[in-house]
């Protein structure tokens, strides 16, 4: 819990610093975050490779875990369909288009802006960035109450990059493969799903 609070602290600090232009957000910052991600993955790799029991556990993983991307997509869409009945000014397909961003906020908001305009695009941007933040902050809590697959499912399309280290920490190294597989599949399905629901 303390670890999660520190993470939120850094996130909020970033918002304040950039919003009040103490340090402006430039291209250099997005380059820096890519390099930081590469560095992070390298060190996550070291911690996996140096642990010989992890490699053994990979082979014992249940093949049924490959169903997880499907569960993530169906669960998210079911939730969006139900909630669209209560949002009178949004159609079912609009809600599904926003939801099927699966945390991939940059891509989904661009596609939705193209089809439905900036308003729904902004909602998609906000909704999916919130999803990523929830995945980052709630992973330990989710494991405790809903099993080790739930943080991966909530992470959506981000589970092979930004949320992977948190998932590794809270679900255990055995689930790194599940997380990467899940991230790969959902990542590729985002453009198709969003376009599909936009054109309905």
């Amino acid at each position, binding site marked *: 819990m303390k670890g999660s609070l520190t993470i939120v602290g*850094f996130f909020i600090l970033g918002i304040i610093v950039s919003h009040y232009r103490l340090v402006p*957000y430039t291209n250099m910052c*997005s380059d820096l975050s890519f390099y930081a991600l590469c*560095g992070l993955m390298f060190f996550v790799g070291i911690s996996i*490779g140096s642990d010989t029991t992890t490699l053994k556990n990979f082979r014992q993983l249940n093949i049924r875990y490959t169903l997880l991307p499907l569960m993530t997509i*169906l669960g998210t869409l079911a*939730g969006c369909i*139900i909630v669209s009945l209560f949002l009178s000014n949004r159609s079912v397909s609009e809600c599904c288009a926003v939801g099927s961003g699966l945390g991939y906020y940059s891509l989904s908001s661009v596609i939705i802006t193209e089809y439905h305009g900036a308003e729904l695009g902004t909602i998609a941007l906000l909704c999916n960035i919130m999803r990523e933040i929830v995945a980052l902050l709630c992973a330990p809590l989710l494991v405790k109450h809903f099993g080790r697959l739930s943080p991966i499912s909530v992470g959506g399309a981000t589970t092979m990059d930004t949320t992977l280290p948190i998932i590794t920490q809270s679900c255990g190294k055995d689930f790194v493969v599940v997380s990467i597989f899940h991230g790969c599949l959902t990542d590729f399905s985002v453009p198709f799903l969003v376009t599909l629901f936009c054109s309905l």
Partner: protein
Amino acid sequence: MLIITIILFMATGIFAGYLIRNKNIGIVSRIVTGFIWLLLFLLGMEVGGNERLIKGLYVFGLEALILMIAGVTGSILASWALWRYISKNEQKKNNQS
């Protein structure tokens, strides 16, 4: 193609980690934590510097929050169902053997 670069970095890390396996490397987890802090700080900077996001938050924040909660709740329940199904199956298998 960025994804491939990231996976390559991870693969190199796994290989490097295998070379120094079974040695005490407590510093690695501290480096990982440091990188997570840096990434979250930069994500915050991206959000804070995006005028469209900050303005949109006041107007569409609630709608986005409702949709996020709906999607997240749905996926939690779906993954929980799969988790319980797999756990039950593995228990059965263990009891048989």
